[in-house]
């Protein structure tokens, strides 16, 4: 299922990173800023010179931006426009709304004795099982599935209160390392998108799936492309089931996958609020 990005009744709206469009000031290549055609071709258009003239009488100015002159006391060296002020005020409201709907200020705990380490947007869960070290790494960036408009049934419209929640479903990498081993068995896993759809019991995908399996040098953070990688797309299903059982025995099962989604969603929301706060600070004053 692909969920709406509208978080709450207060309409704290943001664009999915997959569909991000940068809304910036008009670039110089914008057609409206190009030199106008000569008067001969467009007899009813005033020339720019006429519009920008300082002669008496009111002349509408085309390109003035209402720049607030930096106050003497500010001295931040940054630009302050009315747009920035409106942006800052908008961000204040957004931050308030997001904090209201934030489930908890603290992150949910994973069951099974997993320890969590954060490195920016990357999270690492680890535990030991009888001498084996298991780590699960995921990044909350780009972890929210793209938003496609759900078709509205004729004559029906979902009230705002029923908008589905945003859920973060990051790809995650499971690394299993046995003692004194040079290589780790690494599983690249994901949440199949159709499993996330709401429906009348129509979901028939596993909660999470293994995409690739490989032996990688222990301790290396980069995926080594020269190590054989087993792709599960065309894998024998019995072998696939054994791999899933292997992970389940080490605590990576459906319960873990559900909890990971909750954790990732909470981290993502936290990071989003922090980003809004940083943005507010940047827009207001350096």
């Amino acid at each position, binding site marked *: 299922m692909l969920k709406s990005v509208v978080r709450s009744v207060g309409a704290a709206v943001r664009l999915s990173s997959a569909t991000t469009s940068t809304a910036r000031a008009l670039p110089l290549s914008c057609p409206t800023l190009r030199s106008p055609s000569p008067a001969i071709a467009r007899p009813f258009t005033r020339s720019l010179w006429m519009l920008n003239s300082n002669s008496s009488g009111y002349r509408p100015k085309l390109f003035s931006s209402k720049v607030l002159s930096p106050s003497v006391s500010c001295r931040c060296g940054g630009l302050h426009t009315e747009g920035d002020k409106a942006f800052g005020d908008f961000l204040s409201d957004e931050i308030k709304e997001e904090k209201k709907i934030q489930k908890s200020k603290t992150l949910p705990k994973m069951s099974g004795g997993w320890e969590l380490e954060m490195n920016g947007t990357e999270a690492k869960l680890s535990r030991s099982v009888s001498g084996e070290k298991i780590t699960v790494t995921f990044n909350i960036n780009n972890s929210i599935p793209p938003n496609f408009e759900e078709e509205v049934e004729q004559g029906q419209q979902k009230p705002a209160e029923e908008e589905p929640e945003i859920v973060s479903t990051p790809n995650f990498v499971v690394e299993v390392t046995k003692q004194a081993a040079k290589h780790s068995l690494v599983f690249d896993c994901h949440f199949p998108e159709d499993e996330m759809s709401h429906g009348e019991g129509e979901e028939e995908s596993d909660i999470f799936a293994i995409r690739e399996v490989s032996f990688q040098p222990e301790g290396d953070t980069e995926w080594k492309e020269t190590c054989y990688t087993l792709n599960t797309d065309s894998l024998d299903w019995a072998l696939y089931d054994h791999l899933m059982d292997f992970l389940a025995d080490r605590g990576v099962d*459906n319960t873990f996958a559900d909890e990971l989604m909750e954790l990732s969603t909470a981290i993502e929301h936290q990071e989003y609020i922090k980003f809004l706060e940083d943005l507010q600070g940047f827009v207001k004053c350096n």
Partner: protein
Amino acid sequence: MGVILRNLQKVVPLRRARLRKDVDTLRHILGIQKFDLGVICVDNQRIQQINSIYRKKNLPTDVLSFPFYEDLRPGKLPCPLHRDELNLGDIFLGVEFVMNQCREESLDLHGALTVVTAHGICHLLGYRHETEEEWTEMLQRESYILSEYNRLTGRHLEPLMKRCSQDR
């Protein structure tokens, strides 16, 4: 193709490879290896929802079968003309329901799942148990399947005799 196995629940710690192996054994006994089969493991909430929608019974149960061929004569294998039709249908296993029964009766979970799956496959093959006659015919078939299973694996499984799953 073969058995598409899905585990949509987190209540019961399933062994997927074991379940698949048991289902493959049943398929071998019935001679239905060339047909695709879906086995979907769900919890009480999901099986109750499906039971309510399709059988108007708002209760969890152990198995619900959705045959691809709806009017098969019991035990007569379909003769499909196209590869797309090499499909028997889907079985939803109420694994939480079965697990609770196993706890009450001190049974092995995977053994019970095998029995329930055999029952479900019989339904896909046209067997019913709405009349006394149908019930006897289905019981005989299940008994045969499980006796063969026991012979091949050394286990001691018995058919669902006391309960009529799809009457719940």
